[in-house]
């Protein structure tokens, strides 16, 4: 590899990749841990590849400690996947710890901090101990790094190769798939047989092409015999690491079309000689009928080469073949390797940025660029809505003609917007996947038996939400494990099953994402919560709190009920921080608890940046938008259907069900609004905490798709308002937060409202100064 590139840039990419690889390794380890009795070799392979890639990159950047450690780690993994060592719980534990160490080392390398491996000597020793435990097992079939590094006839390390050895990423798949034997292929006579001659130009590797990938790709098409032509191999002294000397002849039995085969070579066709011929008689290995000749293929030359080539029968010399392929080392990320092999299985997120083969499944894009795009599209939608409105004011004919055009335009913009938004959406899986390990570790520390059951991992939500979900979720799970779930004895005494359950669910609901954490523990001890709250001065001694309100005290700042502050949770900054995090995201959190039966935390978060279908309503002089997803129906109640309750609130009966009214104009102090529900309209909406509530409005103005704009960016959150948007006339419209409104209406907040009014008055006075 030439050294005239900007290393830093590559480093950045490397660290990004490391992060992904570590995440993926951890996820796979989680799978192992939950099921170590019946290990899926694929999972081990995946972990191995992760560690190996990290090592590979580290080698290239000279992160010695990282290389050394990952090597030890990798060696054990290698033994594991070869089945020489069987996995046990202790080992998975160690593997997880090793992943942590690896993560730390990567961090150190990133921060350019010196690392002292001694800190992790224990882990290294453990890893080595596991590795050596069954070292005597059949070494001859085992082909690990050391074996390959031994000089072979066809593999001769030059200094450059040595340096790039870390990048020799193909070694890891050596034992994965034994190459098909000739017998296998010949026996299968039903499928057409092709002979493919592939002679790379000497410079093939410089364009980031990798013959091995092609071989693999071919093999995925059908049964394949590979012959390697080594006639171009120069003497050792003349050999250069970045030149391609080998040529290949493939005999391929496949159902796939010629086109599929050609596709394999799509990216290298200009840099090689390629001849694909169909063999009519299967037993005949020589070409009889040339079906297709690629533009660069020079048939005559090819034929000559073929005669002189010393074909090596691959089935006898598996190792040699692989070694010969690795003899042309080429920096390629293992992601590419895996992708070319089984592209559908791999997480698309992990796709490498530059695929030399087809099926490039993803690219890496700077988030800023996506954001810019999202903003521009948002502006486009608003402008389009404005234009549409203006065109409606035009003279009849003109407006009519334009209407059709606008209809199409809005269709396209909507589609465009949805596609752009989708770029930012990611499944919550990336967050959920970290929880099983957390639960396992905590539960073993606390000596509790807990199963974590997750659902809805694939629910998609905006990336920013995902990023900020991690901390609160971790905290809540910790909380459930530590405080929620009882000890084994307690569970036994109350006749509960020995193993406790924590459910973690995600789903889309009312245009938001709803995340639930349910445990079947002891529930919230209201007596103790009250006692603590009074102790800490959070509530006065005299109070008339409802059970639900007591439960919600756990979100109060500085509240912690843990009798002993454990290192698991209980520093008293917990749940209020969680609540604040969620609020900052424009979300809500509530807790439902049933003493003795468990606790349920319910988080509802916006799918930020999303577009929202809204119903525009009039309330006095103001217009508001109600998210259409939460609207159930709109009714015009008659006097008989309205009942006033003791506390002054009004309920409306709809088909025998009593629904509480929210007097929007009272809550928002809007002038000139309809006060008598029988004169106005009631929009029945669904809330998360209060079931159905009816919002009293003057009239409905229409339905419109709106772009959610953050009100909080330049101002603070306002009760009952979830966000803002820009309406067709360019003015700001406020989107109602139905749950928030219900909460405001439902007493409790009444007092607070009073207090706040006083506060504002005080502010006024402050502003007025003393002269008042």
């Amino acid at each position, binding site marked *: 590899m030439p050294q005239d590139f900007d290393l830093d840039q590559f480093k950045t990419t490397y660290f990004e990749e490391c992060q992904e690889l570590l995440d993926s390794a951890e996820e796979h380890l989680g799978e192992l841990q939950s099921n170590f009795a019946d290990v899926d070799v694929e999972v081990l392979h995946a972990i191995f590849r992760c560690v190996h890639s990290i090592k590979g990159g580290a080698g290239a950047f000279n992160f010695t400690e990282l290389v050394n450690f990952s090597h030890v780690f990798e060696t054990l993994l290698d033994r594991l996947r070869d089945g020489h060592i069987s996995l046990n719980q202790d080992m998975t534990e160690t593997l997880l710890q090793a992943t942590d160490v690896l993560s730390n080392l990567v961090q150190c390398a990133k921060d350019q901090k010196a690392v002292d491996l001694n800190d992790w000597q224990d882990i290294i020793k453990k890893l080595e101990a596991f590795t050596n435990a069954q070292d005597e097992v059949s070494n001859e079939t085992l082909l690990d790094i050391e074996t390959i590094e031994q000089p072979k006839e066809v593999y001769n390390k030059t200094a450059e190769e040595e340096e790039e050895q870390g990048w020799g990423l193909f070694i890891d798949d050596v034992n994965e798939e034994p190459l098909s034997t000739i017998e296998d292929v010949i026996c299968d006579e039903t499928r057409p047989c092709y002979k493919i001659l592939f002679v790379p130009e000497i410079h093939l590797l410089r364009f980031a092409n990798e013959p091995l990938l092609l071989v693999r790709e071919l093999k995925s098409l059908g049964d394949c015999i590979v012959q390697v032509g080594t006639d171009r191999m120069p003497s050792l002294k003349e050999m250069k690491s970045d030149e391609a000397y080998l040529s290949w002849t493939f005999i391929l039995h496949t159902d796939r079309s010629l086109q599929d085969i050609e596709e394999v070579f799509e990216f290298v066709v200009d840099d090689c000689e390629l001849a694909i011929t169909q063999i009519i008689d299967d037993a005949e290995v020589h070409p009889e009928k040339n079906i297709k000749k690629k533009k660069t293929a020079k048939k005559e030359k090819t034929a000559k080469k073929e005669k002189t080539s010393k074909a090596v029968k691959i089935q006898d010399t598996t190792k040699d073949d692989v070694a010969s392929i690795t003899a042309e080392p080429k920096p390629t990320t293992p992601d590419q390797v895996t992708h070319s092999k089984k592209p559908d299985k791999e997480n698309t997120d992990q796709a490498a940025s530059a695929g030399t083969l087809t099926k490039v499944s993803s690219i890496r894009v700077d988030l800023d660029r996506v954001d810019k795009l999202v*903003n521009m599209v*948002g*502006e486009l939608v*608003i402008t389009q809505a404005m234009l549409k409105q203006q065109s409606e004011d035009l003279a009849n004919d003109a407006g009519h003609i334009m209407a059709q055009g606008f209809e199409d335009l809005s269709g396209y913009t909507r589609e465009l917007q949805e596609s752009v938004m989708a770029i930012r959406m990611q499944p919550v899986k990336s967050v959920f996947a970290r929880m099983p390990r957390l639960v396992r570790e905590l539960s073993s520390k606390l000596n509790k038996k807990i199963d974590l059951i997750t659902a809805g991992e694939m629910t998609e939500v905006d990336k920013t939400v995902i990023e900020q979900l991690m901390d609160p979720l971790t905290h809540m799970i910790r909380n459930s494990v530590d405080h929620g779930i009882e000890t084994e004895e307690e569970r036994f005494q109350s006749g509960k099953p020995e193993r406790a359950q924590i459910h973690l669910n995600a789903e889309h609901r009312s245009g938001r994402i709803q995340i639930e954490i349910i445990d079947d523990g002891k529930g919230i001890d209201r007596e103790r919560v009250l006692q603590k709250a009074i102790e800490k001065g*959070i*509530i006065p001694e005299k*109070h008339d709190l409802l059970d639900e*309100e007591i439960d*919600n*005290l756990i*979100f*109060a*700042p500085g509240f912690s009920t843990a009798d002993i502050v454990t290192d698991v949770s209980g520093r008293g900054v917990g749940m*209020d921080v969680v*609540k604040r995090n969620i*609020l900052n995201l424009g979300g*809500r959190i509530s807790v439902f608890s049933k003493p003795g039966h468990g606790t349920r935390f319910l988080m509802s978060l916006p799918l930020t940046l999303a577009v929202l279908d809204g119903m525009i309503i009039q309330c006095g002089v*103001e217009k508001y938008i109600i998210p259409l997803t939460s609207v159930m129906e709109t009714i015009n109640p008659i006097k008989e259907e309205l009942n006033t309750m003791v506390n002054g609130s009004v309920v409306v009966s709809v088909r025998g069900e009593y629904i509480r009214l929210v007097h929007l104009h009272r*809550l*928002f*102090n*809007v002038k000139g609004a309809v006060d008598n529900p029988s004169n106005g309209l009631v929009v029945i909406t669904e809330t998360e905490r209060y079931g159905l509530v009816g919002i009293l409005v003057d009239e409905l103005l229409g339905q419109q798709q709106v772009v959610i*704009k*953050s*009100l909080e*960016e*330049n*101002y*603070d*959150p*306002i*009760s*009952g*308002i979830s966000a*803002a948007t*820009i309406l067709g006339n*360019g*003015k*700001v*419209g*406020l989107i109602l937060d139905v749950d*928030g409104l219900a*909460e405001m209406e439902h007493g*409790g907040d009444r007092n*607070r*409202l009073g*207090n*706040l009014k006083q*506060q*504002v008055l*005080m*502010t*006024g006075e*402050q*502003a*007025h*100064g*003393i*002269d*008042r």
Partner: protein
Amino acid sequence: MASIDKGLMTGFNSTHHLSSNGQGSDLQTIKEEQLQYITFTIGREEYGVDIMVVREIKAWSETTHLPNTPEFMRGVLNLRGLIVPIFDLRCRFSMGLTEATKMHVVIIVQVGKRLVGILVDTVSDIISVGKSAIQEIPRMDRNIDDEYLSGLVTIEERMVALLDVELLFNEKAIETGVAFGETAVALK
């Protein structure tokens, strides 16, 4: 009203770094560090705000009122896709609500990470002031709350009170202003 673009502002500010210990209040003295202010009026009083925090000046347009906010909070405005809260400075200084017309002006200023607009009567000038020309606020003057003022200068016989928007719109002030918005815990 014209909006002042950034290039212009930097142009105005080019003398900014030529600081030394010059004397006198001569505005043209480039030796002294010059500070530039955009001045505006509320009624008969004139105020100045540091040109570096001003992002834009635009004519008043109808805002969307935010529920349960103090009186001086005049609602929010669409500033090319950004939602910007507008504060009525007259009302903030307890001189009554501004009867806003198209002739009134909104000055968009940057306060920390936030953009806020202040509603004033007119924008009058851009002034360059030597640091030494800025006088301290006499403690006697309690006409407006001097917490928000960084000093006074005299320009052609007129007195201009220099506003410190950071103080005027500090986090706390904004928070108290919209304390309703906080769905915070407290069942106090």
